[in-house]
C-alpha cells in the first residue's frame, strides 16, 4: 500500500521517522513531550518503540484515536494545490510528473518550481488528469503532443539520443582503455645526452 495510508499530514511517512530519529539522537526539535503516549500516534510498523509498547498502543490509544479522528479523515487526507483538491498520494504523483516537465517560459526550470502563469496552468491540468485517473505515461504523452519532446527534461531514449545515454559507459570504456593501452606500451628509451647535457653532467660530477 502506498505511503499515504499512515500519514495524514505529511508528504512521506518514512521521512518523518528519520527526522524523529535524528532529532532524538541530536536532541533537536520538539522536546521529549512529543513521545507522550497520550498524544495520538500514527499506527505504524516502522516504529522506534518496543514491541510491548506497541501492543499497548494498539489496544487503547489507536481506538481512541480512530474514534476522534475518523470523521476528519475525509478532510485530512485531501490537500489543495493550485486550486485543485486531491489526496496526498495524488499530489505526490502530480509533483513527480511536474518535476520531469520543463517550464517553457522560464529558463531551465521545471513546472513545479516555477511561478509563471503557464506553469501554474499546466500544474492544474496535470492534477486534474491525476484525479481523473490517467496514468503517468498518458499525462506525459498529453504534454508531448502539445509541446514536443522539448518539454521533457529527460529526452526519450531513441537512436538520436543514444550517444547521450551511452556517454557514461563510453567515458568509462575510453578511460580504462586508455589506461591499459598506456600501461602496455613500453616507454621509449631516453634520448642520448646532447653536448650541453654531457658538459653539465661532467661539471656536476666534478664538484
Amino acid at each position, binding site marked *: 500500500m502506498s505511503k499515504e495510508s499512515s500519514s495524514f499530514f505529511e508528504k512521506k511517512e518514512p521521512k518523518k521517522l528519520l527526522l524523529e530519529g535524528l532529532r532524538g539522537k541530536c536532541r533537536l526539535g520538539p522536546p521529549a513531550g512529543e513521545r507522550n503516549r497520550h498524544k495520538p500516534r500514527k499506527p505504524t510498523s516502522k516504529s522506534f518503540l518496543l514491541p510491548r509498547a506497541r501492543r499497548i498502543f494498539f489496544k487503547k490509544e489507536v481506538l481512541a484515536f480512530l474514534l476522534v479522528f475518523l470523521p476528519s479523515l475525509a478532510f485530512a487526507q485531501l490537500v489543495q494545490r493550485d486550486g485543485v483538491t486531491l489526496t496526498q498520494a495524488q499530489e505526490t504523483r502530480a509533483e513527480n510528473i511536474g518535476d520531469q516537465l520543463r517550464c*517553457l*517560459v522560464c529558463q531551465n526550470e521545471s513546472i513545479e518550481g516555477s511561478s509563471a*502563469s503557464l506553469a501554474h*496552468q499546466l500544474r492544474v*491540468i496535470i492534477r486534474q488528469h491525476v484525479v481523473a485517473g490517467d496514468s503517468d505515461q498518458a499525462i506525459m504523452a498529453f504534454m508531448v503532443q*502539445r*509541446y*514536443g519532446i522539448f518539454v521533457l527534461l529527460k529526452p526519450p531514449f531513441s537512436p538520436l539520443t543514444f550517444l547521450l545515454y551511452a556517454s557514461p559507459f563510453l567515458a568509462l570504456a575510453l578511460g580504462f582503455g*586508455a589506461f591499459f593501452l598506456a600501461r602496455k606500451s613500453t616507454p*621509449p628509451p631516453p634520448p642520448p645526452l646532447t653536448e650541453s647535457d654531457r658538459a653539465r653532467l661532467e661539471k656536476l660530477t666534478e664538484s
Partner: protein
Amino acid sequence: MTTRRNLLYAAPLAAVALAGAGFYTILRRMQSNDYDPHALPSPLIGKRPPPFTLPGTNGQQGFSNTDLLSPPRPMLVNWFASWCGPCAQEAANLDILAQNGLTIWGIAYQDSPAATAAYLSQYGNPYTRLAADASGLTAINWGVYGVPETYLIDKAGIVRWRWAGALTDQVLMGTLGPMLHQYA
C-alpha cells in the same frame, strides 16, 4: 608502438577540433537567425489545429476548428493579448498584411473584453474574426506558450508555420513572404 602512442596523444586535439568546428557552425547559424536556442518547434506543423470552439469578442464572430478546415486562401491565426508588449509592436505589421488582402483571425488570450476592445481601438483591428480564450485552455491544446504567436494555415487546413514572438519586418520579408508564395 610509437604510432599508437602518438595517435593517443593526438586524440584530444582531434576531439577539440571537431567540437570547435561544431560550435563555429552553431554560432554562424545563430548569427543568420537559422538557430535560436530559445525557440520551440511546434508539433502542430503538418497537422490540423486541435478541436476547439471559442466565443467571439468585441462584437465580432468567434470560430472553431471546423471553420479552419479549408480556407479559400492561406490565412493567419494570431494569438495576442492587450497586456502583451510585443503584440503592440507587431500590430502595425498585422494591419499592413490585412490591408494587403491577407486573412487574419485573432484569438485574445486570457484577456477581458474591455481590455481587448481598448487595445484594438488603439492599435487597429486587422482581424476578420476575433475569438477569446479567457481560460487559456485552448492555447495549451494548440501548444501556445506565450503571446504573440502566429500560425499560418494553408488551403487544406494544415498548419504550415508557427512564429513565436512579434512579426518584425525581417520575419515578414524573410520567412512569411516566401511561405505565402509556397502555399498560395
